[in-house]
């Protein structure tokens, strides 16, 4: 190894080095920048493994239920496009006006009315549809049999979180479950406590659009309201389109 290589390594490892040219430093600084990027070091939440496995299992289940194999879909995707539908004969509006002015006027009025009705229906449908998120929840190693789903709906009062979970044992005698929502900065917001997760409704005052990671911990009624850290259930809320 040449002295220059040693100098490069020393520079990267943070030693004071004066022998490198500006260009050499710039090149090494690019590598330093990459090593400094949080993405090179960030670790996913331990619960993500179960979420990934659950997501694929759900996909496999949907495939079995539909009876359409992935191969068939792949074949469709790679197959030549279907023949284009027959081209419809185009009518000249001007000619129609000249030949059938009354019919043309009536037709236009009907079409315009239909468009207006469709627009009104569409606008009403959009305005009445609440903002909603959904999630699949999976048990952690503390509750490996637990699984279920949830819907999170925005209301005037806050976000209503409806949770349906199986495989989570009933807790009583001072032990209970606590549900939380977490944002990307790791801030936890408590959204309710319960004993049985089969059919629970929780409420969040924090916006699910920002607090999208859902967790449930096992707690003990000992006067300490903070998270026990004993997570039994995790999920990530996704917007429903």
């Amino acid at each position, binding site marked *: 190894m040449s002295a220059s*290589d040693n100098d490069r390594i020393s520079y990267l490892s943070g030693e004071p080095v004066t022998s490198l040219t500006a260009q050499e430093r710039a090149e090494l600084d*690019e590598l330093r920048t990459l090593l400094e*990027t949080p993405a090179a070091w*960030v670790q*996913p939440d331990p619960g993500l493994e179960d979420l990934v496995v659950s997501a694929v299992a759900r996909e496999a289940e949907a495939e079995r239920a539909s009876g359409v194999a992935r191969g068939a879909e792949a074949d469709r995707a790679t197959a030549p496009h279907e023949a284009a539908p027959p081209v419809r004969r185009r009518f000249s509006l001007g000619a129609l006006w000249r030949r059938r002015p009354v019919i043309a006027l009536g037709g236009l009025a009907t079409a315009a009315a239909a468009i207006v009705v469709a627009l009104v229906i569409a606008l009403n449908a959009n305005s009445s549809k609440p903002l909603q998120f959904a999630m699949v929840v999976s048990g952690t190693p503390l509750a490996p049999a637990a699984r279920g789903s949830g819907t999170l709906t925005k209301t005037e009062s806050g976000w209503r979180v409806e949770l349906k979970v199986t495989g989570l044992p009933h807790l009583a005698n001072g032990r209970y479950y606590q549900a939380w929502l977490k944002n990307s900065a790791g801030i936890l917001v408590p959204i309710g406590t319960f004993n049985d997760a089969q059919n629970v409704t929780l409420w969040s005052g924090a916006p699910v659009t920002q607090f999208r*990671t859902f967790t449930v911990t096992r707690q003990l009624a000992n006067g300490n309201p903070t998270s026990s850290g004993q997570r039994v259930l995790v999920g990530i809320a996704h917007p429903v389109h």
Partner: protein
Amino acid sequence: MQEREIRARFRQGDPDAVRSVYRSHGRLVYAVAYKVLGDRSLAEEATQQAFVKAWRAAQSFDENRELGPWLAAIARRVAIDVYRREAVRAADPLDSVPAGEPGLVSTPQSAEAAYDVWEVRQAVAQLPADEQEVVRLQHLEGFTHAQIAERLGVAVGTVKSRSFRAHKRLTTLLGHLRE
């Protein structure tokens, strides 16, 4: 399961193989998604979607190829899609947005470096744990050698030698990124 067997079972669409693939490549997929999105929750969402897409496309995967780069490409595409969706969701009405607004750019600039992050992460993973920790503390936390020594409870000389060995290895593994 051996790597080749995992690849074959994943290719056949075996959901059980998904867990094995996640354990071997999940952190790398997540890193790529995080680099593009810069948000833990969105990166987790993109990671889930990437694995579902990979599983759905597994039958077209050539089992003689490495899974890693293939998954990285899927993760990057999915993350860009999530980024675009979030950009639309967060946007003001288009009329009120200046033409030069960065949010109108359809692809995040960080997506370009996603593969570099993937390579860095793979290279760092090949270092011994004690050298990884020194590199992490130095570059991510910004600690000096003396601070690292104090943190780890070892001599400064030990930190310097670990750091030198680690960076020597990294320059070999990542030298092509500078070319």
